[in-house]
């Protein structure tokens, strides 16, 4: 009930659109590791995953690549910002924050 209301006014974590995982994003990655197309924004704090590929093009993509979001690397979701939007990620020793919108461009596979 609560989630339904939050969803309706758009306050629920993760945008209602464009996470790439359909509705039940928690379930989507459970079994079929190969087929999953989760965006990095669908991760919960504390979860780990491996980068599959980067969508999009142009400066954003390049910046993400430069920061080390290379396919095959492992990422850990550290935390959400207090208002849930930018998220903090850990790549080896560095901590990087990005908005969910950009995180959605990074497709990952759960480990």
């Amino acid at each position, binding site marked *: 009930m609560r989630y339904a209301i939050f969803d309706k006014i758009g306050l629920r974590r993760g945008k209602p659109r464009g996470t790439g995982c359909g509705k039940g994003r928690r379930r989507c990655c459970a079994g079929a590791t190969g087929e999953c197309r989760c965006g990095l924004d669908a991760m919960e704090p504390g979860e780990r995953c491996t980068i599959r590929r980067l969508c999009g093009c142009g400066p*954003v993509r390049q910046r993400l690549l430069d*920061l080390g979001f290379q396919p095959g690397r492992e990422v850990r979701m550290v*935390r959400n910002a207090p208002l849930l939007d930018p998220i903090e990620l850990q790549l080896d020793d560095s901590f990087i924050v990005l908005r969910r919108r950009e995180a959605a461009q990074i497709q990952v596979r759960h480990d």
Partner: protein
Amino acid sequence: MTEPRTPSLVALAGQQNAGKSTLFNLLTGLQQHIANYPGVTVDKKYGGYTARGRRFDVVDLPGAYSLSPFSLEERVARSFLLTEAPDVVVNVLDATNLRRALPLTFQLLEMGAPVVVALNMMDAADRRGLEIDLDALERRLCVPVVPVVGRRGVGEAELRSAIAETAAAGRVVPATLNYGPLEKEVARIQATLSAEPALYGISARWLAVKLLEGDSEAEALLADRMENPHGLLDELYRARSAFETQHGLSAGDHICACRDSHAAEIAAACVTDTRAGEVPVSERIDRVLLNRFLAPVFLVATIWAIYQLSIVQGYQLTEVTWPILATFRSFVGGLLPDPGFLTDPQLRAMGLWTVDSMNTLLSYVPIFLILFALIAILEDSGYMARIAFILDRILHRFGLHGQSTLPFILAGVFAGGCAVPGVMATKGIPDARARLATILTVPFMNCMAKIPLYALIINIWFPQAKGLMLFYLSTFTVIAALLVAKLLTTSLLRKEETAPFVMELPSYHLPTISGVMHRAFSRTWLYIRKVATVVLAVATVIYALLQFPGVPAERQLDYQSQAEAAIARFYAEMATNPLRTEVQEPARLVRLVTLQTDFAAEIKSAETQAARAALADALRRDHPDAALFLLPDATPDARAANAALQTLSETRAELRRELRRDRLESSFLGYVGRGLEPVTRFADFDWKINVALLTSFAARENSVATFGVLYDQDDGQNLSLEERMGATQLAEGRSAVSSVALLLFFALYPPCLATVIAVRMQTGSLNWMLFSIAFPTLLGLATASAVFTLASALGLTGLQAMAAVHALALGVLILVALPKPWLARLGAQPTVEAAE
């Protein structure tokens, strides 16, 4: 500088947060300058030093993660490296994150640049338990690697000698990185390029790789240098698409991945993490500071502390520094020609006006020093990045950026700041659209100079609701700024380039005293230098606009004759007084009257009996002749002389005041103020308010001073400006509603001159500067007119009108801020599906 040999050019290249600027400061000391790279608003910091009898010019390149053509900073860095071909490139690496830093090093090596690697932040790496095998790193990279700790100056001498040796060694052979399956193509293109004479001086290997990456700038370079690049470009296109179909991966991605895996390999070989698996200290701190519920608490506490320390405490410090400025004013006053009886010599009036304008600005220096030092601490410690992280969502809703927080804080989110450093601080915002929106909305904040007018009007009309009105005003300005930002980013700025919010959270550092002081002083100095000079020039112009064309000749004569009559009366009263001989010459009389006025003012401001006695003693010592008149002893003659002198100087003060008001009314600015009345009538601004608002464009403090002249007291009344203005305005049929209109206009008032100059500097565009003046003026006028007209029609009281405006603005804000899922459902398609 007198060496026969040409100086060596040293460029500092590195990623953001690698400590490039610290190393730059270390190398060049105080010999540094800031300029812009041609055509762009990217700072070019350059300086120099002399070592081993040789001059080294050092340039700090903008921070770049790689040398791609996507970001402005990277383009600037790259074109500098290509066109200037520095003798040495010092590649500053963050020792704690070698893997991410090395790809840039590879690109520099491929370019054939003579690289010296400065491995910075070795202390942080030590603390984190990273053991770096420097010899192995040197062997793998084939360039000198110097470990340094920029913030403590460790390794400075070694770095200097490595630079000198590399500069002496001359050109180097570009390094080659193996690109695996793409290697054949790279070698082929490289061979074609090196056979091309038009490309002499550019590393063929580097260019081949860049072209295969599909780098637009490299293609442009090719088109620029070669007469017919089409064949080559076509070949490149075929090579790229062949690779993509064969490997299911674009050539650019492959090259990028090659660099990354090579970097990973070197990092793994040279770095041993003795504490692998442990949670870093910064992360442990963040678990508290960035906790979902505690983060806002810490944020508010930090902002409150900044406000308390800089604005409240700094304001008390200005009471200590103000006497210094006042002494400077009297010193200048002493140098300038003496004042006349009725009018002062032009030189004196202008000189003092200039000093006053400058003093108003300089009086804020203590506040700025504290504010900038605190902000430097926030930046150096790493908390500023966290503030951006916490607030980004709110600001992003309005088209701004997490990093807009700092400019808003500087400009005075909560009454008291200055828009000039605020606008300057927008430099760090990577998103061009959000940056422009920030620059244009920062001046809405309540800078320190807006407060006096707020206080004046509120004291006149809302003595019972001072706190409430100030609260309304300060929140209203923030709301207005956010709404305007949203409006601009969705309309005028829609076409501007935008960048994502992708930022590394730096580890927490303990800021060093020297680092903080350096930044605080250099920012304050920037303010003093750039602002004070311009404000001085414009203060002079405003002075002229206020002085000329001047009072008509016949009225001037009228004042003159009144003054002469007053002097004659004085002499008549003194006819039988033996002290008359003391003031026989008119020049002496004028000096005496001036002295009397100054002395009376000093006595009035002295608080204790002792202070007054000290003043009297000083007068007896310095001006024994005048003391006879000013400090009458018991004799009736002296008392009569004193009384006569007092009458004279009162008449003089009154005449001067009348003349000043007359001059203001008949000045250019006065004409303009009257000319604007038909427009400003709807907001209930008369010409006096118009003139005050016009003069406040130079510096906002002027508004109150101008009101002081315009609402002058008549004969011998001793009322405060508030009482005078209140009485006059009431007599003119004004109400609290019209004062609300004035307050709202002043809240939205265009930026002052100094800010406008800063806007010009930061946007690099005259058009934006003009826009930053025109838009708030129109907005303010429209708001003020609407509020006055509607509130008068509805018969609201001032407080009701203000509350209504505030509620309305808040409502709109919430409406804009709330997510609108129905819009998303209407418009955008899911992004990932689209990308597939």
